[in-house]
């Protein structure tokens, strides 16, 4: 096979993966707490493939490879919902969620209360406080969550006594890029990455953090990808035409 075809193929493979990333971003345009992904490419030098048919110094062939996807941790737009159980985090912090697979981290602060009174995510996984899940009592009302994450309620009969139900735990990471995305707007920390308590971030009540996907950027990226893909396809087309002509012309032996 011709090298040009292989190089074109490597580009097309990478473009179709990048399209997958862009499609996933656009699909999550309205997902609370979603963080966009971006693709990274690298030049890939094939150790054995060389272009040395002509008598010039060796020219190495450059293939393209997608090295990784990185998470864009920019804060998303805040949407006011007025729901006392919606929280957004101002800063780099993450909420800690207890799932069956262990602790996970999320920026999605659309919370609910389950039948046991625990503060849970939409999936029903408890949100962790300083010491275990935050549990509300049956007679609690007027839930207020202060910027430091303390959950305070008005309790009991006609009294105005406030009591604290716990404090939402916020954590940060030195290298958040090492976090791995999981389904359900959750992030998991691979081995060796440990969270540190976050003292900088603040909790805002009654707002949710929208997806940080920028529609305009993703659409331009989409155009870019589909045009580049077509361009490569045309290149491959011309290359194969070249072959066809060569075979046709060279085989045309005059009698």
């Amino acid at each position, binding site marked *: 096979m011709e090298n040009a075809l292989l190089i074109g193929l490597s580009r097309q493979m990478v473009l179709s993966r990048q399209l997958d*990333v862009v499609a996933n971003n656009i699909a999550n345009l309205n*997902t609370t707490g979603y963080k966009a992904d971006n*693709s990274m490419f690298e030049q890939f030098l094939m150790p054995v493939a060389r272009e040395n048919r002509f008598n010039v110094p060796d020219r190495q062939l450059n293939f393209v490879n997608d090295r990784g996807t990185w998470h864009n941790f920019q804060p998303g737009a805040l949407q006011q919902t007025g729901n006392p159980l919606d929280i957004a985090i101002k800063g780099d912090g993450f909420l800690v969620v207890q799932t069956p697979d262990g602790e996970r981290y999320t920026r999605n602060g*659309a919370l*609910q209360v389950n039948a046991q009174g625990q503060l849970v995510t939409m999936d029903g996984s408890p949100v962790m406080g300083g010491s275990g899940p935050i549990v509300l009592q049956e007679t609690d009302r007027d839930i207020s969550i202060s910027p430091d994450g303390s959950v305070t309620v008005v309790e009991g009969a006609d009294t105005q006594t406030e009591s604290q139900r716990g404090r939402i735990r916020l954590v940060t990471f030195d290298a958040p890029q090492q976090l*791995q995305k999981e389904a359900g707007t959750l992030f998991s920390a691979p081995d060796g990455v440990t969270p540190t308590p976050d003292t900088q971030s603040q909790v805002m009540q009654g707002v949710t953090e929208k997806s940080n996907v920028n529609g305009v950027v993703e659409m331009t990226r989409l155009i870019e990808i589909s045009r580049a893909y*077509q361009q490569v396809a045309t290149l491959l087309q011309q290359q194969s035409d070249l072959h066809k002509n060569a075979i046709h012309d060279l085989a045309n032996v005059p009698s």
Partner: protein
Amino acid sequence: MRALNTAATGMMAQELNVQVIANNIANMRTTGYKRQRAEFQDMLYEHVRRIGTQTTDQGNILPVGVDLGSGVKTVGTPRIMTQGTLTQTGGDLDVAIRGEGFFKILMPDGTFAYTRDGSFQMDAQGRIVTAQGNLVQPGITIPQNSSSLTINSQGQVSVVVSGSTTPTILGQLTLTRFINKAGLLPIGDNLFTETPASGAPQDGVPNTNGMGDLQQGNLEQANVEAVTEISDLIAAQRAYEMNSKVISATDQMLQSVVGLYR
């Protein structure tokens, strides 16, 4: 290509979003209606190159991996149980709740349902019923020859029987609250039923334990805000369009592949 399916999940999610918004707007003037919101989450990721894998014998590890997501899923349409505004109607049997509680309603099949809609009526026997004719619990019968029906903020129902000057207390309306109001199951007609998610119902007298007090002559409006719904609708529609563009872009790319072979 995976992008086709990913974009399809995006379109389905936005379609559902528009459905939820449409239902909110349709119920803008429904007494005691609580707005819903569609909540989405991302779906499974394929870790093509896993973060943290070793790349060289010297122990270098990958700082970032290739994660390909597969779209979006709807995780729920929770109800936002905030207080709606009260409007004055002047009706004797119009009662609004200012607080957390629900009215308890006896359904024809003997089960209980719960509602925030306090636009009650009187049936032929003088009992307090909902607009569908279901009994409000606990049953209170208003005598025929009575006037000036009063429901105080504690839920006490009293009337003045003709020939008497002092009001007679007929009974006490109770309210019910749930630890997780958003976990109630809507069954239409402004009614909700208990579910394992809502927790067990707790009955109580209005104005105690955070039940909220009653306001006679008022009705609770829906908590739908037109501006929020319309801006959500615009966002949902545009997101739908963008997802459809992804599908057509993928289609074009596939076409150019097909065109390779002549």
